[in-house]
């Protein structure tokens, strides 16, 4: 099948303002002025690109309120950076294998300045086998699970995949409120392999190529609707190109070439970033013949919710290998953290969670025994 017959990344209509923001925030963008600075910054904020847009517009006449907002973001990122270091030190002292994801580390990698990225929370990877110890230690450090009646850590660690393993904690102290997200499966890798990859870096962190793959996977999870994440990737790849051969090799081994291919398409469409020709050619065979229209969401509009069925169809469609689709389908039937949280069953009746899984997949059960309308589904069933 010629490459031209394969599926192409959609080009959503953009307003003049959107085009200006994309040009301003692209890696090749330069400091500029805008006719209506306030409107441009307000739109950039809605798209998650305010700090970068403001930084590149700084010399023009923006309202002082924007200056203050930029500074507040910088101060908050500085706070989150120190808090993240504190938490990683706590986890390390408890013998927990942990590493930072995205966040201020990404801000420095992508922009060389942690003020240029807006950050909502702290994301940490924790090895699944260390999850109970991590939650215990973090509780001592002032963090508790955001969901009441949270699932026991040992059970939680057995659930989830690279799209769904996530647990939210909130700080309970007097300082700034912080949302902390723990992730324990971030790539389709064995725990042993991921631990070895992290341990090879000092301090522990994802190696460059794995980090790029992780961000591509995150972009796919959000249906390429987060311009912020795409801008991060575009800037990072521009500042520090990966070893493409190694990246393609790892992507092939993990069955992520299709996702990498589509992410690079998105970077080209929105930020004019082009991968080297041999890379594009190597990825061409992973490009799908077709994809459901909802596979890629319009980043200039709010993200539409999907039914559970549509949601899983998309995730299956993003896998290029049969064995990965089979693995996903098999995992789909296994109880998740959401199932455990939706209904508390006595210990001896744990096997009934397999039924709960079916009820939740069919939309009959969401949070407790409450029938959901058929047209409405959870984003992460």
């Amino acid at each position, binding site marked *: 099948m010629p490459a031209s017959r394969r599926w192409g990344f959609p080009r959503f209509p953009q307003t003049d303002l959107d085009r200006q923001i994309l040009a301003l925030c692209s890696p090749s963008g330069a400091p500029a002025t805008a006719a209506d600075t306030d409107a441009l910054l307000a739109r950039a904020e809605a798209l998650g690109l305010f*700090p970068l847009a403001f*930084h590149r517009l*700084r010399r023009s006449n923006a309202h002082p309120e924007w200056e203050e907002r*930029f*500074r*507040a973001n*910088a*101060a908050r*990122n*500085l*706070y989150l950076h*120190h808090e993240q270091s504190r938490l990683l030190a706590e986890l390390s002292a408890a013998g927990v294998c942990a590493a930072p994801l995205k966040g201020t580390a990404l801000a420095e990698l992508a922009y060389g*300045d*942690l*003020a*240029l990225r807006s950050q909502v929370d702290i994301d940490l990877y924790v090895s699944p086998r260390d999850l109970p110890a991590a939650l215990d230690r973090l509780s001592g450090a002032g963090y508790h699970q955001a969901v009441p009646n949270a699932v026991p850590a040992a059970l939680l660690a057995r659930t989830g995949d690279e799209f769904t393993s996530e647990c939210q904690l909130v700080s309970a102290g*007097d*300082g*700034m409120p912080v949302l902390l997200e723990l992730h324990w499966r971030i790539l389709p890798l064995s725990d042993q392999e991921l631990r070895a990859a992290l341990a090879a870096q000092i301090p522990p962190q994802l190696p460059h190529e794995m980090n790029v793959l992780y961000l591509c996977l995150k972009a796919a999870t959000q249906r390429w609707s987060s311009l912020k994440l795409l801008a991060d990737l575009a800037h990072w790849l521009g500042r520090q190109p990966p070893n493409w051969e190694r990246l393609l090799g790892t992507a092939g081994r993990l069955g992520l070439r299709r996702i990498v291919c589509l992410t690079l398409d998105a970077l080209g469409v929105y930020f004019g970033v082009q991968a080297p020709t041999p890379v594009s050619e190597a990825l061409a065979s992973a490009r799908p013949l077709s994809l459901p229209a909802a596979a890629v969401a319009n980043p200039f509009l709010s993200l539409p919710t999907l039914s559970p069925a549509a949601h899983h169809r998309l995730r299956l469609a993003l896998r290029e290998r049969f064995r990965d689709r089979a693995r996903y389908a098999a995992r789909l039937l296994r109880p998740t953290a959401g199932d455990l949280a939706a209904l508390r069953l006595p210990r001896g009746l744990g096997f009934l969670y397999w039924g709960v899984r079916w009820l939740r997949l069919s939309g009959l059960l969401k949070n407790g025994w409450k029938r959901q309308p058929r047209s409405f589904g959870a984003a992460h069933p």
Partner: protein
Amino acid sequence: MTALPRGRIRPARDVVFRELGGEMVLLNLKSGVYFGLNETGTQMWTLLVELKDPARVVDALEREYAASRAQLEGDLRELLGTLRAKGLIELDDE
């Protein structure tokens, strides 16, 4: 006109600082109070952290700027007053 504080000055406990987005940002991790310094303020702060003594900071500024010593002292005094009021610096005897 009040004189420059005598003695050594240091960032308050729990205060972190870093150059971000083209300016120095000071943040008290406990209180959440933050403050951004412009280019001149950043230079004053950098010298303060290094030299600790306001009089020596003015000496260093005098070598760099074409302003009078009185003007530089006035600017530094104003900055120190603001930072002290926000709990971002401490005097050695505090």
